[in-house]
């Protein structure tokens, strides 16, 4: 005795239920699925670089300097005659590696400091002032200052990029800990005789992982761009490391002649960062739309 409108909707939902689960999931979370697919392709390209790359990325061929895209150099060559496509494929590895390491490093350090700040009022005041101080220094300057002082390597770049991200993670974790601390299930745990370390492990941290993972994915995306900035300013990974940032930095001097040197790695970097941002957006809406509002 349903009205026609409800019957029609019921039929459509019925059809949906019979479709393969992945299709139904994709329909409901388009952003996450699109992002994940794009990211998977980029990661695959990076992993299969040795087999996919037509040329050795470091093989210089001065005769073929600054050639436009052609049959055997699909994306053209750079100032030293190296194949842009091969270097771009290899570059993906460095940027993805830097991005993930920065995200993990800043998430873990931020989790530790943030939880301490959330649970200890005295430490909270000191930590938060330090974090405010670090946030006041523009990320680029902090990273650049660090890079001028320590020997440039992938590891030091990761630390230099992570430094400005840590205060943001600490601020997020601290606010989450302060809200979770007031929840009745924490009071119940105390009433059951559960000691603080166990309360942290079983009750507090599991409930703040969701927003932390979403924040980490945004950091992963911005870290890849940051790596490009650092290399661009001449304070990034050592020049011989084929990261997208270095490639684009080398392209600066000849930008008028061969814009492809900046354009193609730029597009790859853009797509990868877009993929990670989409995954971040998708995760936020999937896991907990309410918490997502704050990011």
């Amino acid at each position: 005795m349903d009205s026609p409108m409800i019957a029609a909707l019921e039929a459509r939902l019925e059809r949906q239920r019979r479709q393969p689960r992945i299709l139904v999931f994709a329909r409901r979370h388009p952003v996450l699925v699109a992002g994940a697919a794009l990211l998977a392709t980029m990661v695959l390209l990076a992993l299969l670089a040795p087999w996919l790359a037509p040329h050795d990325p470091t093989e210089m061929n001065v005769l073929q300097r600054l050639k436009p895209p052609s049959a055997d150099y699909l994306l053209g060559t750079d100032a030293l005659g190296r194949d842009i496509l091969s270097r771009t494929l290899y570059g993906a590895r460095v940027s993805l590696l830097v991005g993930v390491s920065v995200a993990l490093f800043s998430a873990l350090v931020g989790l530790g400091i943030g939880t301490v700040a959330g649970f200890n009022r005295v430490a909270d005041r000191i930590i938060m002032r330090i974090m405010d101080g670090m946030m006041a220094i523009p990320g680029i300057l902090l990273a650049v200052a660090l890079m001028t002082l320590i020997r440039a390597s992938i590891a030091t770049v990761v630390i230099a990029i992570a430094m400005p991200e840590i205060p943001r993670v600490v601020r997020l974790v601290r606010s989450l800990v302060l809200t979770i601390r007031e929840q009745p299930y924490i009071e119940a745990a105390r009433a059951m005789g559960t000691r603080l370390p166990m309360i942290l492990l079983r009750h507090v941290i599991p409930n703040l992982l969701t927003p932390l993972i979403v924040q980490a994915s945004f950091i992963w995306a911005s870290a890849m761009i940051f790596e490009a900035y650092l290399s661009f300013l001449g304070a990034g990974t050592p020049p011989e490391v084929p990261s997208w940032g270095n490639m684009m930095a080398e392209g600066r001097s000849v930008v008028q002649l061969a814009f492809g040197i900046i354009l193609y790695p730029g597009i790859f970097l853009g797509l990868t960062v877009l993929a990670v941002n989409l995954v971040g957006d998708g995760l936020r809406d999937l896991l907990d739309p309410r918490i997502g509002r704050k990011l």
Partner: protein
Amino acid sequence: MNYLLRRLLAVIPVLAVVAVIVFLLLRLAPGDPAVIIAGDTASAEDIEHIRQTLGLNRPVVEQFVGWIGQILRGDLGTSVFTGMPVAEMIRQRVEPTLWISALTMAFAVVFAVPMGIIAAWKAGTWVDRAVSGLAVAAFSLPVFVIGYGLVYGFSTQLDWFPVQGFKSLSDGFVPFIRHLALPVISGGLIYMALLARMTRSTMLEVLAQDYIRTARAKGLSSQRLLLRHALKNAAVPIVTTIGLGIAMLLSGVIVTESVFAIPGIGRLTVDSILRRDYPVIQGIVLVTATAYVLINLITDLLYGLFDPRIRY
């Protein structure tokens, strides 16, 4: 009134922390600071000269106190490379950076806030998806790729704008604007994307509140509801985002300046890096951090304007 006092007092510890971080950065690095500043090619007496001028041989605490004393008197030390006082170097190069930052922020805010509001108001429609999509895309591109893209498109091909360089306002309005157009747009796009996303999520949160449902039950039209009821509540979080976003804006500006070869603070930073002119880097970090803190103080003070709960 004690809210204002509290906000003013809160600025001091933050600036103190910035000063300590900047001071410690050089000393924490492995190896002898003087050697690092002098660089690999420098001779023994160069290193000794730097050690003297920067007083690196005195005990650390004494150096710190001396340094702070200098800063409070407005003396940011002297550049190792040019020998000029850092404060003077910064003052000469600050005008372009100020202009770019201000115009970029204005350009971003003027577009981002309305876009965010409309996307939230029309949540779920194609408008929302378009704005969110554009924002994520712009947000994912490094500023120099956009910069060189614009230069390639508008300068080399169409020649509407100069490839690089900066003309100060005194050289006439048109050249001034023509030189700033592309840098402002390339830096602005990213900051606009961030602001649009934040405005949208803040507005969505406000539109879900009970008092919006009450306003609707009063028979208000959507425009009135949006502007008078929703926006006034969303103003505080949006202003905060603009404040916090400054740090990201400054990063963008520094890179934009090297793309368009604009002689601003950003360019000065890059040059000081290459020349390992640490006192200048120290000075720039201090100045930009102070600017950031003051701007955020202003956004905090605006709270009182928008949110009566804080005034009373």
